[in-house]
């Protein structure tokens, strides 16, 4: 019987009531008295020198309050980068400035040049059109390899080149890797592109800045996954506002997928301008604006090589990647192709030697940063593609080749600096073979062929590192932040609890799943627990939600705080029952004395904490509120095996996903319904990356896929029902819940399965195709077939 409450149950989501009735409170739903609206005049040129900006005409336009340009921000800090990567020579990365509004140059289409604050949105936009900007167009650098050639135009004149860093990992292994390749019985080489994506949460970004002159306090309402991080970055590095004078609120947020982690210029602008004009200032991105101002994702060009011995054991792996940074370093951009990518290159396999080289490159494109999976999809895609290609070349079964090379003993220290605590890759593969009905594939292929369709099967494994991460470790790796999480558990006198968590829910359902944990620990009803998040004035500190870290890190902080609560409550209970604290047991919301029939209810104890008439005041303080900060000892390592079956229409190249199965190991599971939903969503995005999505620039730096007319979002008709299983569970060994994180798995694990399946389908028709770059659009598949 599935549980009906507590850990492992799937209660209906409580947040749904407001979302289903139109009562959600998203940032754009916030309208402050007297608010003005800002419209950003953005560059329509990828690269240019600003010779002059004339705002005189525009200032006379109806409703205009004030027009800001880069000059207004000269004495103000730029947008900071939160991660410094050290290159293979031990030198820090090149780190250019990132002004709030362009200064001197524009560096990508969408770079904000000026900001018009007016009484209405349309008036602001009307006036922005009247601003005269004198820009001298400069050659744009778009292609990464061209950007690194001698004589390429410089995106940043104060840097020596367009190379942000040249990273080698593990540099000490390089020679040994080379030697292993020399000795290899077989080497498989694959060149591929991990396509540039745009996260496209359905809610475009919004920022509302407010300023209270009487208290000298600024407030920013923003569509963020991590309001405290925004408070820290914007307050300390951009605007110089101390935390106690700056409140950041991220209310209901309509999806994030990474792109709402980062600190954006518009947030700093609205906060700054609100103070300047002493009125609230609101910005709501249009979708068109989102396309050219939200950080993009992925965009790697890679050559990967796998060395095998005569028995098909993997002996070494090396990979060379060019990673696009775009025109500026977005908040966590440098970490994505390095520490979130290189450390995962061992995958699920006991390859003893791995060397990863990454060249991060500045181009005249929108900044590129984390998108669902961030680095791990890039690692998984190339690894799982090269293994499939190796299987083809060697004429062996791709599943058998993987199984032969699986890591089977844990903990396992990889050659790329991480230690997997636990896992069972054969178990997830066994489960996959069952749920995907791989035995039935041949019959399904035959049936497809009767309809003139090519059917293919693709499988792959994945491993990821979630729950980022030990602060002392990431500090050594260049993170400029700690990556703990905090929680405050406040118990009210009548026994209800409020948990203030630094994690942020923007679709993940924390308001439902977090109470399940606490209710289970205390033995009370979940309805007695309320979750508060997304407001720096209510939650002490938080690093936010990304990297599938909420439960593993934020949940662990919450558990630690609740443990402190229980410890104190037991002291009170012991006092009330005149027993020894050591003998107090808590079960089903009752404190009892072991071996006796004495008990007091949870509510009696909490009431005593606030009405301490009969209370051990000499030992403990009244009240029942505890805070914990949890800094994880390691990453968590979810893993799994995915299978995709496609049909290809050989006449048109159109691919349809016929079946998709996922067997994941997320360790312990708090709410299976939510976990399943997370996997579904990840798979949907992974299928999107594999078949549909691609941000495309022309050679002049114009974004061709600049709206939903040209950027193909997955629709309901593009995907099938998925078969998802997470019954394989090897609990994480180092966090109190034994959980691993499930938010990104689907997006990480699915693209290679899709591409492997398409390649398999085309090969079934005798086409000698080993790879097609994503997205596998009908045109590309057809071209590959008819190449």
């Amino acid at each position, binding site marked *: 019987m599935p549980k009906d409450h507590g850990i492992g149950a799937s209660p209906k989501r409580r947040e749904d009531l407001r979302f289903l009735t139109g009562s959600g409170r998203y940032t754009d739903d916030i309208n402050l008295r007297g608010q003005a609206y800002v419209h950003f005049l953005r560059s329509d040129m990828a690269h240019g020198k600003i010779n002059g900006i004339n705002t005189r005409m525009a200032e006379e336009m109806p409703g205009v309050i004030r027009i800001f340009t880069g000059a207004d921000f000269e004495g103000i800090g730029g947008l900071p980068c939160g991660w410094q990567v050290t290159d293979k020579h031990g030198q820090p990365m090149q780190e250019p400035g990132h002004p709030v509004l362009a200064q001197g140059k524009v560096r990508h289409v969408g770079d904000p040049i000026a900001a018009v604050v007016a009484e209405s949105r*349309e008036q602001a*936009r*009307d006036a922005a*059109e009247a601003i005269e900007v004198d820009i001298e167009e400069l050659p744009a650098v778009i292609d990464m390899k061209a950007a690194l050639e001698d004589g390429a135009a410089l995106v940043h004149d104060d840097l020596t080149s367009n190379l942000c860093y040249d990273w080698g990992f593990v540099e000490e292994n390089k020679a040994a890797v080379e030697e292993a390749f020399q000795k290899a019985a077989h080497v498989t080489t694959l060149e591929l592109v991990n396509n540039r994506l745009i996260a496209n949460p359905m809610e475009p970004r919004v920022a509302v800045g407010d300023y209270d002159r009487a208290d000298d306090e600024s407030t920013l309402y923003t569509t963020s996954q991590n309001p405290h991080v925004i408070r820290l970055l914007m307050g300390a590095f951009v605007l110089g506002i101390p935390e106690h004078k700056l409140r950041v609120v991220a209310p209901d947020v309509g999806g994030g997928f990474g792109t709402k982690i980062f600190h954006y210029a518009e947030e700093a602008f609205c906060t700054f301008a609100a103070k300047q004009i002493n009125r609230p200032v609101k910005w709501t991105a*249009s979708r*068109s604006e989102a396309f050219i101002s939200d950080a993009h994702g992925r965009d790697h060009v890679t050559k990967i090589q796998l060395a095998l011995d005569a028995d098909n054991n993997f002996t070494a792996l090396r990979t060379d990647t060019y990673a696009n940074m775009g025109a500026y370093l977005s908040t966590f951009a440098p970490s994505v192709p390095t520490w979130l990518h290189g450390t995962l290159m061992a995958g699920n396999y006991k390859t003893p030697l791995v060397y990863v080289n990454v060249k991060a490159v500045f181009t005249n494109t929108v900044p590129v940063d984390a998108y669902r999976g961030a680095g791990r999809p890039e690692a998984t895609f190339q690894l799982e593609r090269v293994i499939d290609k190796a299987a083809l070349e060697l004429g062996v079964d791709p599943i058998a080749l993987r199984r032969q090379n699986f890591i089977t003993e844990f903990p396992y220290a990889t050659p790329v600096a991480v230690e997997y605590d636990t896992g069972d890759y054969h178990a997830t593969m066994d489960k996959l073979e069952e749920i995907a009905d791989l035995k039935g594939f041949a019959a399904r292929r035959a049936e497809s062929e009767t309809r003139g369709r090519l059917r293919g099967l693709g499988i792959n494994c994945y491993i990821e590192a979630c729950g980022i991460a030990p602060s002392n470790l990431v500090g050594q790796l260049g993170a400029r932040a700690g990556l703990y999480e905090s929680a405050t558990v406040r118990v009210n006198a009548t026994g209800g609890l409020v948990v203030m968590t630094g994690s942020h829910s923007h679709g993940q359902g924390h308001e439902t799943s977090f109470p399940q944990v606490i209710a289970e620990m205390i033995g009370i009803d979940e309805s007695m627990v309320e979750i508060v998040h997304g407001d720096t004035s209510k939650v002490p500190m938080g690093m936010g939600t990304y990297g599938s870290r909420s439960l593993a890190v934020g949940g662990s902080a919450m558990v630690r705080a609740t443990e402190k609560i229980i410890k104190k409550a037991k002291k009170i209970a012991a006092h009330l029952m005149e027993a020894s604290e050591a003998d107090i047991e808590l079960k089903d919301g009752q404190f009892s004395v072991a071996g006796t029939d004495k008990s007091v209810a949870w509510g009696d104890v909490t009431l005593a904490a606030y009405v301490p008439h009969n209370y051990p005041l000499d030992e403990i303080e009244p009240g029942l509120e505890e805070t914990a900060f949890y800094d994880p000892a390691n990453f968590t390592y979810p893993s799994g095996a995915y299978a995709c079956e496609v049909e290809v229409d050989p*006449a*048109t190249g*159109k691919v349809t996903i016929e079946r998709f199965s996922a067997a994941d190991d997320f360790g312990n599971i708090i709410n299976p319904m939510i976990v399943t939903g997370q996997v579904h969503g990840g798979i949907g995005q992974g299928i999107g990356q594999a*078949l*549909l999505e*691609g941000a*495309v620039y022309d050679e002049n730096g114009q974004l*061709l*896929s600049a709206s*939903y*007319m*040209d*950027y*193909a*979002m997955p*629709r309901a008709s593009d995907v099938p029902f998925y078969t998802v299983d997470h019954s394989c569970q090897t609990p994480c060994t180092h966090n109190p819940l034994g959980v691993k994180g499930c938010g990104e798995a689907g997006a990480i694990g699915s693209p290679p399965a899709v591409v492997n399946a398409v390649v398999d389908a085309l090969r079934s028709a005798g086409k000698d195709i080993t790879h097609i770059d994503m997205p596998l*659009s*009908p*045109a590309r598949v*057809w*071209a590959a077939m008819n190449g």
Partner: protein
Amino acid sequence: MYEFEFVKPTTLADAIAALGAEEAQALGGGQTLIPTMKQRLAAPAVLVSLTGIEEMKGVSIGDGIITIGGATPHAVVAEAVAGAYPALAALAGNIGDPAVRNRGTIGGSLANNDPSACYPAAALASGATVVTSNREIAADDYFQGMFTTALEDGEIVTAVRFPVPEVASYRKFEQPASRFALVGVFVAKYPEGVRVAVTGASEEGVFRWTEAEAALSVEFSPDALEGLNVSPEGMIGDLHGTAEYRAHLVKVMTKRAVAACIG
């Protein structure tokens, strides 16, 4: 959007008068024009809504002719002609999405003549007559290239008359993002011959594939097209497909449309 004056006449005569104003533009269902105006790519001074003109709405069927009022939404057409002209109904019922079909109108679509729109293919393949506020225009004369028609300033598509074919089929291969036609082919067989109209593919907008028409008029089967090829020259090439790919798809979709006709 730029500000404009909005008028919503209830008679055709008032609409014609309103469109006489400087920089006036007609507004059908607005499913293309409003997004265009939101991008500030169109700036009419006066916007004349045609949605309040009852005489321009509705479908009548008789004597082998279907007459569709210019302000009739796609969803209404899809339902009204399902029995009389199933291929046209299927086309109308598959434009955009349900919400778009509840607003978008046949007159608006034909007046705009988007090179990837569906209706132009139906009108051209059916040899339809475009009835305007001034005159009647044969489809063969009406479509004059991408976003270009025979319409003059202020002229309104009041109705479209479709002769009902013996059999017809429309096959749309969707552009993955917009879901407009990357290539759409409408094949209609009439006693006097077969007409094949192609949308989405050409830089000149909707066109008739005359070689296919000739071959199909002799033998109405997919095999009749076997020896034909469409030249990629003049075909649209963009990030969703090269000119060669579109040219190829024209043939594939035509064959499939014919196959569907003979079912």
